[in-house]
């Protein structure tokens, strides 16, 4: 593995995070920022064979007035051992979910990490909150992992970085907010960290050993944990999606949960927003859908999970990220695919 630096062509070592010659970051985190697009064009007018009329600065077609889908409406990221898909779904006007993925090597061992945030719809600018959060968290997490920090400490520090980034968006108009879920997969297991109701699952090749690795910070789970309602009753209540912890200036010192899981066998780590698990919360069922494809083609498996949620109604934004364990690193790893 001595590929040349893509920026300057000098040889680079397998563990290098940065090019020793030119200083370029060799594998920065991939972020679902929607920025990869060129000039936007209205797909409905294009389908009707009309000449492009331009898109207003606010994102509307100057001919038919329709909102032109932004790059964030659907995005697929692939960094080799980790891949993810985020989708606007069918009912929301925009995608307020965001994800960031990165893969690197520490002392020759592959490490992959992912962050998923779901902007809180009742807060202002939730789409900016989620994007700022994943970008800040993935940057912080990647640096810490490269520095060889303990993954639990690195995860907690990344939440702080995300909280600071989201807090900076607050204005007199209100405090943007988002949920948070991260996972760092290394040679021996996975370290997860979360706030709110975005989830991390372990999907085992032995389907029945699959399990959820997170517990939601939601009224539902609190009611169920207190024995005051069944899951079905709680989910049917209007407060089903009220979360009790989040990232945002209106909750200044969020206390994230951090957990470590060391799988006894082969499988895949799934991070997802509630747009997926609303339609299928059971780990075993999710594993049956994702495996075995996820072991060899995590991007295709992530896309299949998103398609399942869209076909089931697509009521919310959907984000799925898959990281096989043990980490498999294809010889030629595409960094990002659309």
């Amino acid at each position, binding site marked *: 593995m001595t590929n040349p630096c893509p920026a300057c062509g000098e040889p680079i070592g397998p563990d290098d995070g940065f090019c020793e010659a030119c200083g370029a970051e060799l594998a920065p985190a991939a972020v679902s920022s929607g920025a990869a697009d060129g000039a936007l064009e209205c797909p409905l007018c294009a389908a009707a064979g009309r000449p492009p009329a331009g898109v*207003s600065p606010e994102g509307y077609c100057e*001919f038919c007035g329709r909102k032109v889908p932004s790059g964030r409406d659907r995005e697929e990221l692939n960094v080799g051992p980790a891949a993810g898909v985020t989708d606007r779904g069918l009912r929301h006007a925009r995608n307020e979910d965001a994800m960031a993925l990165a893969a690197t090597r520490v002392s020759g061992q592959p490490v992959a990490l992912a962050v998923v945030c779901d902007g809180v719809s009742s807060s202002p600018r939730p789409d900016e909150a989620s994007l700022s959060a994943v970008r800040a968290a993935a940057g912080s997490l990647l640096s810490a992992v490269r520095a060889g920090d303990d993954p639990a400490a690195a995860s907690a520090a990344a939440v702080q970085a995300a909280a600071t980034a989201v807090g900076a968006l607050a204005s007199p108009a209100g405090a943007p907010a988002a949920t948070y879920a991260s996972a760092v997969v290394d040679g021996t297991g996975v370290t997860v960290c979360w706030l709110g109701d975005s989830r991390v699952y372990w999907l085992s090749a032995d389907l029945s050993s699959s399990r959820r690795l997170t517990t939601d910070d939601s009224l539902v789970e609190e009611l169920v944990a207190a024995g005051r309602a069944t899951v079905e009753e709680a989910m049917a209540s209007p407060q089903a999606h009220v979360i009790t912890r989040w990232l945002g200036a209106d909750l200044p010192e969020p206390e994230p949960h951090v957990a470590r899981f060391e799988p006894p066998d082969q499988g895949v780590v799934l991070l997802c927003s509630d747009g997926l698990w609303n339609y299928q919360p059971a780990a075993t069922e999710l594993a049956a859908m994702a495996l075995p494809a996820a072991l060899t083609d995590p991007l295709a498996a992530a896309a299949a999970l998103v398609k399942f949620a869209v076909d089931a109604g697509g009521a919310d934004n959907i984000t799925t990220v898959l990281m096989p364990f043990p980490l498999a690193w294809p010889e030629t790893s595409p960094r990002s695919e659309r």
Partner: protein
Amino acid sequence: MTSLSGFTVQIDQNPYLPVGGRDVSAVVTVTADAEATGGAPPAQDSADGSAEIIIVDCSGSMDFPPEKILAARAATSAAVDVIRDGARFAIVAGTSTAWPVYPTDGSMAVADARTRTEAKRAVAGLRSNGGTAIGQWLRLAHRIFQSHPATLRHAILLTDGKNQHETPEELAAAIGLCEGSFRCDCRGIGTDWVVDELRKISTALLGTVDIVPDPAGLAADFEEMMRGAMSKQLPDVMLRVWTPQQAIVKFVKQVAPAIDDLTGRRSQTGPLAGGPQVGEYPTGAWAPGESRDYHVGVQVNVGAVGQEMLAARVSLVASSPSGQQILGQGLIRATWTEDEALSTRINPGVAHYTGQAELAAAIQDGLEASKQGDEETATAQLGRAVALAHAAGNEDTAKLLAKVVDVVDEATGTVRLKRKVSTADEMALDTRSAKTVRVKKE
């Protein structure tokens, strides 16, 4: 909310449409910045851009009673005193013909201490004798305005009688000639003039119309009108409405401070009006800090559930010799949803002004029915007006209504027509029926 150099445009609407819904409406609040727009210094310099003409009815009836012509002279002099130094002005007298009273050569004077004194001396010599042909008066004012390239042109027109000495067609042609050339505030003194005649002029010429029942109140009214005119600093502002292809602009109405339907005044021929998707509506001149509300209704093509559409982009556009400039803009949106809690939510601003427009219509229909002797319709319409005015908190209109009907219960609109109603009260209600109150903001 967007603020560009000059105007703030705020959109108040419910953007959610039910499945298959097509009608989008919004209240657009337009507020001119408190400071002079476009960096133009106020006072002296902008006064060069102001031109004022006062048109005084000198028909024979102004002598019956003689207080009317006396009040007209005093009011004109009071208005002349308010004209700022450097502004252009002229005074016109009208009968079945029209002539320049000051300056007598049909030009415009530059306001200063000397010209004001001269003008007042000329006004003191005004005598009443002859008929009434308002179209002739407007044509002369138009000709005098053309003698100077001022951008803020405004006239005050005073009459006490009906337009008897020319046909309605002649008056309409004269109004058409003046449209877009100058603004005109109209005042009727006494009760022998016709509200509809003056309303046609004031509507087309973007001004106000009102009754001055008592000649004693005229001077204060003229002063106020002239002060208002002098405060305007931004001429010829157009409300530009962009809509998607195949959308229909159903209406564009000014709804505060008074109802003025601009729907029929759409022009698509302006130099920057880019085809059928863009229409422009005249709003006249603006004073710094001035705020008005518009109610805009658009019918769009149906979108899919979850689809968001820009139903209209509303901009304020100023024309100047250097071209057109966009001074502010707001977006009216539409989003289709299956959630009926969202799509059926009534926007308070839209509901308020829909009610105010109904109020104005009920008053005019009620007064018309009363004139035709249809007491049943008059009672029903004026009763409805009482209830609407009460619900909206429009106290001024409620007071005017109470002079025309005996109110039994204002909440339900139960009223009895008064046996004796003064003509002046009826005309005051008619001219002021379009005045609105704004939505109470908490």
